[in-house]
């Protein structure tokens, strides 16, 4: 029997969309490549226990081919992907894409890219959704619902002006010593900083401070980066499990969706995919389809569907991504102290900078260094590695990193299209930053550095790292929701203007990208669409 809705992709948007439809009594078939996470190794062991107890710790931490070691001249990022997270970024055989000015990341994992996220959950403000074709009140209740499902910690503080409060917020996670000291310094400098539009507070994190259902609270194992073995840090595969408890849910992994078969009356008739194991093409007839494969993959499927149906090659503009800049800092107040490994490893604090307009808000996530592997940082000092290691040991407890996020807007010269080859056209991504980006970055980073200085922290010269576009993996904007019925846009319910039984429920439909991790909003929006369109 054809299900109520066929969902493509099992990432954050897809699973929350599916769960909402299932709860409303609908039936869902989910098609997915679905690379599976490896089983958690010694779930009760802390990171240091793992080093002690694993027979081959280098294999676990660095990979059997040492692929997680970033050597100079080979890679440009601070950190490699830990081997236990390879499944998130592995591509199926034959997957090809090309890009210019953009370094896209794709995930074919069961659970999608958020299987490797850092848990930041920031509701957008009314100003930030001004371009969305619905009022804020239509979205807000769904933040509550997602918070209830996934468990978000946080509290009302100075950052709430940028991140509205919502229901079901759990008490914040315990702070490590370094983060506590930063907050103490902030309390002293608060008046002056606030006058300059700088605010510091707790981040909102999808990591449990208390048990939620079968998931246990964070017990500070120090393994966030390698994958929380206790399920305290939320990942979409947990919601996929919730979906699988429904008899009306069918999850079919091992399929790479190629395109949608379109009827002459502009309705989607079937999803066409290829079995990864056998290469055999399969078609799944559909009543309604929800594309939730991630903005770039959903766009590829959309472009391929039009190409197959009409022979037209179109170009979809408006691609957005958050520029991210990493600023390592040294907290002078922590020098000469022992670092504390026993806390949540990712950001516990955030830094908000008011902009000229509310949409120019700049958001920083402050992570203090705890149990992460340190050779990627030690090698950056221009000294012999023995001295670098010694110096690093003296400043380890004092080290932190601000990941500064910048907003992006839709521009036509940032676009996605298919390559010209006839047999197997692949995805091509083009991106150029706007002309005023360098000035914007310079201005904001100067403010971040001055804010850090007020917190008794200095940014070592030459260590600021502007990440390439694509690195933040907050892709959006290619099939935007709009009030006007322009071609290649979607309605307020993310319904395609070309094919009325097609919904696009991931970031592709966002008409604006604020300087925040949008995953929380992706989930809330997917719930909103499912609630409204499938009642």
């Amino acid at each position, binding site marked *: 029997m054809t299900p109520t809705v066929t969902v493509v992709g099992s990432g954050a948007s897809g699973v929350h969309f599916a769960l909402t439809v299932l709860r409303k009594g609908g039936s869902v078939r989910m098609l997915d490549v679905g690379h599976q996470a490896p089983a958690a190794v010694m779930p009760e062991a802390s990171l240091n226990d793992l080093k002690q107890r694993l027979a081959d710790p280098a294999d676990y931490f660095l990979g059997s081919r*040492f692929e997680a070691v970033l050597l100079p001249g080979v890679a440009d990022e601070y950190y490699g992907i830990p081997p236990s997270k390879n499944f998130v970024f592995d591509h199926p055989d034959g997957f090809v894409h090309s890009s210019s000015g953009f370094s896209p990341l794709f995930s074919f994992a069961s659970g999608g890219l958020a299987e490797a996220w850092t848990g930041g959950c920031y509701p957008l403000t009314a100003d930030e959704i001004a371009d969305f074709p619905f009022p804020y009140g239509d979205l807000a209740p769904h933040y509550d619902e997602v918070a209830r499902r996934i468990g978000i910690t946080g509290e009302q503080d100075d950052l709430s002006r940028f991140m509205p409060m919502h229901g079901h917020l759990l008490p914040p996670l315990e702070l490590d010593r370094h983060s506590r000291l930063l907050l103490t310094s902030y309390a002293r400098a608060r008046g002056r900083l606030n006058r300059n539009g700088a605010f510091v507070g707790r981040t909102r994190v999808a990591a449990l401070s208390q048990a939620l259902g079968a998931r246990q609270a964070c017990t500070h194992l120090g393994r966030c980066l390698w994958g929380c073995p206790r399920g305290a840090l939320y990942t979409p595969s947990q919601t996929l499990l919730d979906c699988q408890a429904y008899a009306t849910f069918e999850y079919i992994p091992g399929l790479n969706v190629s395109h949608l078969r379109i009827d002459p009356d502009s309705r989607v008739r079937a999803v066409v995919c290829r079995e990864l194991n056998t290469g055999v093409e399969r078609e799944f007839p559909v009543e309604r389809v929800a594309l939730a494969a991630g903005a770039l993959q959903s766009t590829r499927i959309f472009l391929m569907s039009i190409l197959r149906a009409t022979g037209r090659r179109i170009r979809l503009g408006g691609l957005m991504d958050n520029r991210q800049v990493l600023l390592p800092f040294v907290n002078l107040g922590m*020098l000469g102290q022992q*670092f504390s490994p026993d806390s949540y490893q990712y950001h516990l604090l955030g830094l908000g900078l008011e902009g000229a307009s509310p949409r120019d808000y700049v958001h920083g996530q402050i992570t203090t260094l705890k149990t992460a592997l*340190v*050779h990627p940082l030690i090698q950056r*000092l221009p000294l*012999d590695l023995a001295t670098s290691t010694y110096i690093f040991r003296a400043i380890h407890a004092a080290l932190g990193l601000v990941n500064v996020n910048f907003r992006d807007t839709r521009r036509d010269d940032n676009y996605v299209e298919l390559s010209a080859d006839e047999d197997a056209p692949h995805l091509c991504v083009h991106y150029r930053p706007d002309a005023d980006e360098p000035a914007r970055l310079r201005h904001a980073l100067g403010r971040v550095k001055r804010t850090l200085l007020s917190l008794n922290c200095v940014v070592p010269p030459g260590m600021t790292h502007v990440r390439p576009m694509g690195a933040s993996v907050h892709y959006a904007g290619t099939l935007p929701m709009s009030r006007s019925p322009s071609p290649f846009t979607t309605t307020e319910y993310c319904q395609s203007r070309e094919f009325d039984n097609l919904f696009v429920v991931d970031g592709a439909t966002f008409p604006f990208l604020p300087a925040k991790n949008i995953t929380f909003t992706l989930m809330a929006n997917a719930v909103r669409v499912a609630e409204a369109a499938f009642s």
Partner: protein
Amino acid sequence: MRNGIFVTGGSGFVGRPLLEALQRMGRPVAALARSGNPPPVQAGITIVTGDVLAPDTYREALRSCDVVIHLAAVTGRASAAEHMRVNVRGTQDLLDACRAVGVPNILFVSSIATTFPDIAGYPYAEAKRRAEEAVVSSGLRYLILRPTIILGPGAPVLKALEKLALLPAVVVPGNGRVRVQPIHVDDIVWHITETVRLDRFTNSVSEAGGPDVLTMEELLQHVRLSRVGRTGRVVHVPLGAARFPLRVAEAVGLGPWMPISAGQLTSFRCDGVATNNPLSGRPGSGLLGMSHMVASPPGDTTAAARQLRAECRVFTRHLLGRTPDEYVMDRYRSAHETVPALAAGGRFDESLLACARLGPLGTKIADAYAGLFFRHSVLRKKLILLLAILETRPPFSETIDASIVGSPPVLLARLVLKTTGALLSLVAGTVIFTPIRAALALRGGGAR
């Protein structure tokens, strides 16, 4: 059902393969491990964190066991008091705990040294003899196993023998005619598992030796032959002359740097052969012979592999001031098989590596130069990869994690001192390598 096996000393040279073999038997196995020194984790083995001298830490674990295999002991250069404390009192505590919870059988691994006619000044043998007495009078069914020298790839004794055999001449304490009968670790493990499997707790003593009896001098020559391809000239050092400086060195705390302890010299004047060897009948290919016993660990056979091991030792001393263990050396070698970026670079790369291989100071100078002027060099990549490996492996990871703590002035003084050393190395590196790089560039010799 009470059918568990409790093992002490599971992290040791015999303990690790023994746990693997016991695990294959399919019976529940619990291994006592001191905090910070656990055996590698294997499925089906319960790790009990505790200490043989603290019975409260493992008494509960004993309740489900009907066999205890007691391997834990201090060896080598520990003090006499430490030998008595761990090897005698520790054994007594374990026996008391076994009696208290009703464990019926114990296999105690002792030493052939207990049979030496004169063990005065050899606290290890003295302690093992007293521990044997405790086992005999414990009331438990027992088997006391007295192995001769236990060899095999990675054997701690082999390292000591290498120090004597690989000097410019083979240094033999005493006349070298003392007889030994080394046994392969796999054969000891086989003997222990057979004892357990066939329930041979016959209240007896079993001396376990290998297939060949040879002189100490012949054994040292075997080691040299396997390492450098030929035997060497022999220098005999009179035992009396050797003992005195060793005693002095041990008294002032230099014992750990000596190739051997004064007590261990006893092994160079007393025969260490098994008189009632029960191992002659191992099925299959029989007992493993000398070539297996003195073999280097796997992957250590070629000149290139030997160079990587030497390099790993020098580089680890440079990075952390420590000696790498077998695991680190093995991972370092395998990284060279899988990471293309570590393959030989240009001529200048080779110059840096040649300097670095000279020793920790050479490494520091070459690294200081490369850290500023040649960051993509093969030397830097090798050092970074090694640092990454060390970071995953205790106790090296603990060193890297240990913050340098102190008040700001003290910290600053330390950092200034360290940085001064780094700058001096950089000056030396610049003086040495700038002309070399320029010369290679002029010749078009690949000074990349």
